């Protein structure tokens, strides 16, 4: 899992970098907000980030705000690093778009637990996005079936959106989850199949009902 660490203090940055790498994260560490924003808005950006609140260039809150204001905001879990006494900073950070915060100096066990929350949230959001995609596709198909369908008065073929006439079963199969198996209804059995069987066996057709 990729993670960005943005922290201007070399001591805290090195500690985070090493501990996160020990936990199996693929860490990119930067020392200011401008570089952090570049990493988070670039191609193949990490989805997890730990951002220091006070940094040169852009502070952590401004990085959060700009990442969230992207035209196509990406799925991203942003954790803010702030010193313990700064309650006002925590509130401002969460308002700026951070998902969570960790107090500095950080406790490794707390950091690990909060990162797990982050990964759980990302997984949830990913599966939610996939489910919404499926539902949207299903909705599109339902709309196609509910639209006005031109049907031939004689052969009962249906004209699709590309001006192509299809058998009704082919059309339904293409535009819904339905599949078809062939069968014969009692009426057609009596009126079509029975006379054909009789003709084959040389018998006189039975009188029509």
């Amino acid at each position: 899992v990729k993670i960005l660490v943005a922290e201007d203090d070399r001591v805290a940055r090195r500690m985070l970098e090493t501990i996160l790498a020990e936990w199996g994260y693929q860490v990119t560490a930067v020392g200011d907000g401008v570089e952090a924003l570049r990493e988070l808005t670039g191609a193949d950006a990490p989805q997890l980030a730990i951002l220091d609140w006070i940094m040169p260039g852009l502070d952590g809150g401004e990085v959060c705000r700009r990442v969230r204001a992207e035209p196509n905001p990406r799925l991203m879990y942003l954790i803010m690093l702030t010193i313990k006494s700064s309650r006002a900073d925590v509130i401002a950070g969460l308002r700026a778009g951070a998902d969570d915060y960790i107090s500095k100096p950080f406790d490794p066990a707390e950091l690990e637990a909060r990162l797990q929350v982050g990964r759980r949230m990302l997984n949830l959001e990913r599966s939610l996005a996939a489910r919404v995609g499926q539902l949207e596709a299903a909705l599109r198909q339902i709309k196609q079936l509910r639209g006005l369908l031109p049907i031939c008065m004689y052969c009962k073929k249906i004209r699709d959106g590309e001006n192509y006439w299809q058998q009704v079963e082919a059309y339904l199969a293409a535009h819904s989850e339905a599949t078809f198996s062939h069968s014969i209804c009692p009426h057609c059995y009596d009126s079509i199949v029975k006379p054909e069987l009789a003709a084959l066996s040389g018998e006189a057709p039975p009188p029509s009902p």
Partner: protein
Amino acid sequence: MPESLRASRAVFDRGEAEARVGGNLALLREVAALFLEDAPRWLRVIQTALYVRDPEALWRSAHALQGSAASLSARAAQETARRLAAQARAGDLAGAAELLPPLETALDRLLPVLAEVAETRPVVADGFIPPDRPTPPPWRRPPLPEFPS
């Protein structure tokens, strides 16, 4: 707990610092060495910012020193830097200036201890002895910057 132990833990709490690096002593050595390089620089910026009366630069440098000291469980330096940063943020330069000597004292006590931590040779089970690193010069408080009058 004896008073001397309490005092030495206030300077640098080694047990807590080891817990902060998850028991990774090589990492502790490395970050202690980083602090030895950075702290004198921050102190110099603090001194300069007080001299040129720049509360913003003073606040940022004191805040940075506070963060670094906190990461290393150096409570005395952390607390003094925190108070200095708070004074700077409130624009009280006179109050901040009063905290400069205690901060210098805290660093005078802390840096030799961290120099020892940074120099501690790792114990390697298989008999491998890592090569010596060059010994850094002993800690000297940076002199006050000289400004044209």
